[in-house]
Each structure stands twice: as structure tokens, then as C-alpha cells.
């Protein structure tokens, strides 16, 4: 697995950690996301510049997941984050020192939860005509 680093798409992406859960907002789209458990831990590592191969090793060291499961989970997460324009790849990351294996927590593959009310509004999508002054008005 390549060791790709990602950067968080600030300033349009803002995030906070609240009681161990990461909440993320894309200020441009208004979409709201959350990550918990392993997802929250991986987000924190991503923010530090940890590359994807190291993220997989992080998962193996801290959670009850084998190498294949860890790699798949990391790849799925960064793909989801990138698809929502929350992160973008910046290139090869500097390799992290090996993680020491301590107590490993049960592993639940991270899922990027998306919460948005905008979709209800988007479905309206009325057609507007532009009048002679250039201002839109609702089509009769």
C-alpha cells in the first residue's frame, strides 16, 4: 500500500472533536459529517500528516484488525473523505516509526456519517426564467 499523505481542505472545511467524536463541516456546501471510534482516531492521524500505509499500521497496532482489513478500511475512509472534498492528497508521506503494540480495541470499520438537510431543498429545483432586466423569476 502506498504511503500517501492527505491535507484537510481548510479553510472551507472546519472540524472539532467533541467527546471523542469528530464533527466536520464543509462551509461551502453546508454538509455536516461525523466520525467516531477508529474513524476519529484516523482523522487525527491524517491531520498530523500520517500517510495511508502508516494509517493501516496504526489500525493494526491499536485495533483487532489484520493487515488486509486495516488497509481496506483506511483506503475506504480516505476515498470517502476525498469524494466529499474534505481532504486532498499531497504526495508521499514521511514514514512513521513503528507503532508499539499495546492493548488493541475491537475494530469497527470507520464510516463517514453525512448529515444534511440541503438535499430536501435541492429536490425543489424550480425552473426560473430571466426577465428583461436579468433577474430570475419563477416560471408561470
Amino acid at each position, binding site marked *: 500500500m502506498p504511503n500517501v499523505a492527505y491535507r484537510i481542505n481548510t479553510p472551507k472545511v472546519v472540524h*472539532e472533536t467533541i467527546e471523542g467524536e469528530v464533527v466536520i463541516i464543509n462551509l461551502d456546501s453546508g*454538509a455536516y459529517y461525523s466520525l467516531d471510534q477508529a474513524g476519529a482516531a484516523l482523522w487525527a492521524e491524517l491531520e498530523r500528516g500520517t500517510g495511508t500505509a502508516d494509517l493501516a499500521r496504526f489500525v493494526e497496532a491499536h485495533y483487532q484488525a489484520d493487515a488486509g482489513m486495516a488497509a481496506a478500511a483506511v483506503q475506504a475512509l480516505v476515498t470517502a473523505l476525498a469524494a466529499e472534498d474534505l481532504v486532498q492528497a499531497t504526495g508521499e508521506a514521511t514514514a512513521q516509526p513503528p507503532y508499539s503494540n499495546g492493548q488493541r480495541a475491537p475494530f469497527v470499520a470507520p464510516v463517514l456519517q453525512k448529515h444534511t438537510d440541503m438535499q430536501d*431543498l435541492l429536490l425543489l429545483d424550480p425552473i426560473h*426564467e430571466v426577465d*428583461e432586466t436579468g433577474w430570475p423569476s419563477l416560471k408561470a
Partner: protein
Amino acid sequence: MTRPPQLRIPLQGTEARPTTVRGNPDVFYAAVAQAYAQAETVAGPVRLDYMIAGQHVRLQFAGPALVPLLTPALAHLAVPSAAAPPGLTIHLWETATTGSAAPPPAWAYTDFQQNGLIEGFETDQLSVVFELGSNALSVVGHADGHAYYWVKQAAQVPYYDQGSPLRVMLHTWLSRRGVHLVHAGAVGRPAGGVLLAGRGGSGKSNTALAMLASGLHYASDDYCLLTNTPQPTAYSLYSTGKTHAADLARLPFLRPAVSNGDRLATEKALYFLHRHFPEKLIAAFPLRALLLPRVAAQDATTYRRVTAAQGLAALAPSTVSQLPGIQAEDFRTLVALARQVPSYALSVGRDQDHLIATVTALVDALNAGSPPA
């Protein structure tokens, strides 16, 4: 990498020739101000002052046409006109009675965005929003304390904007002063109260309006204002409420307050509460908790403590999605609130009396410094 799609409304020109070149925002702002000045010369000024979350705001209309549509929801915050200049003067006009139209858009028609923002016209000096639902232009000049609101004709102002007028403009101006608009109901006592948070259909409005029959006071059912310093405080903005017409069966005392009874087939019932329940309205109170209502298939109303993250997830998404130009500070205010006060999931039962008693007892426990675990 796939970027989220930018939302464009397909605009179909007929004989129109929309501009395709993006102009200068400052030039556009000056032209808007001039158009208003011309309107006021024709129709004469109507000035009304309000105190909104401690901020003095003046509505200055060119003629009276828009006054009965945009001011009733704010009537509970009206104050006598003061000699001191207001912090914000909003100039409002329509073309139908003044003959003055806003200048043509200074941007390409593809710059209209679904959320109302205009590509290139949201700057430190200026915020321009064109709401495609109501086709209202809102322009806020952050440097000079003036803002402008224009529609072609007063009749186009939809009922939901009459219930919560100038929402985006007030959010834009107030948020830079540490006062943030939130999508939430608010009920309580002068000693303290709660926000009712959740997306549309969660039961915020029905729960808030039900409290009109309780000993609690009412600050909002849908939108209110929030500050975090020195302590979390909710401020009333609109003295209105809205429910589906069918909900009147649970809230029969609201029937005399329905303002749009002839249009309930296409509109929610809209109530101007200052006309019917002025003693029940409250301007502000300290915030003690977030309540997250959900309609439950049970008679009794119950609640249980939930996490701050759950409270934030109920409050933030709908707030953020309804406010064009949301800033990081708005989000951080919501996060801070979720950290500062407890959150409770409220399962709203069918028994209205039990709902009222449960929420009232919870508010009183919170005000007594005994938040339920």
C-alpha cells in the same frame, strides 16, 4: 478526486440577455443604494426601530407596501425610534409602487447558486444573496452599516418569509457581532430555558407551540438567536410559529391565531403570536439544555440524556444548510454550546398535557441547578 457538484439553477432566458461578465461588487453596491434612494424619493420613508439581541436595527422602507408583510413577525422587538444612529439600517423597497428597480445583476447568470449566494459577491465588505424561492435580493454592506432588500412586488413575498423575514440578512450582519442564528425552537422562563433542536419534521414547532399552554414562555419555534458569552443565551427573533394544518387538532387554542386560513391547502398555518399571546413571549433567557424532540408512538413524553455530539448533530446540520455564507465562527459557537449545556433526547408522546408537564418540570429542574442525569 470528485468535487461536490456546485448547484446551479438552470435559467432559461426568453427575450432576456443575461450578463455573462462578472462586475465590480462595490459598483453594484453603489447602484443598489442609488436605486433605493430613488425609490424613497418617490414613495417617502417609513422608519421602524427594533432591538434584536441587544443590537439596534432600523428598517427604513420606501413607502408602506412591504411594511405589513415584513414587520409583524418582529413587532415584539419594536422600540421607539431613537436619536442615536442604529447599528444597522436595512433599506427595503419594491418596484411596483416606487418605479425603481434594483440594478441588473452584475454577474453571469451561472453565478446564481442554489443556496442564494452569488459567486464572487461574498467578501469582507459585502454580502449579496438572491433567494430564488422568494426572488428577493439582499445586500449587506459590512463597512457602512447599511443593507438593502428588494423585490419586484410585495405580493411575491411568500408566507414563510413573512413568518421569518430578513433571516439571511440578519444572520449575515449579526454573526459578525457574536450573535448567531440557529434553526431551533426556544422555550423557558426568565431564569432559563431550552433550545428545541432537530431537522424539519422532528417536532420542534409543535413542542414549542404546545408550551404556549404552559407556564413557560415562548421565544421561537424555528429560528432564534444565540450568544455564548458571558453565558449561553437564547434571544427571540420572530414572534411567529408555523405548523401543518393537521397539527391544529393537537393545538386547538391556536385556531384563532391562524393568519392564512384560506391557504392551508398549500401553506403551513402561520401564527403571529404577539397579537394573540403577547404575555407568553419572552425576549431572551439563559440556555440550560438542548432538547432533541422526536415524535414517538406512545402516550407519555419521556427524555434521556444523550451526548454532546448528538446534541450538536441535531442542531448544526439544519442550521448550517439554511444559512448561506456560514462562517467557521458560527459552527464553533454551536460546538461550544453543545459542550456547555446538557443534551436530552425528548420522545414526544400523544398526551399534550403530559408533554407540557414533562418539559416544564425539566426546565424547572435545570433552573434549580439539578439537571437530570
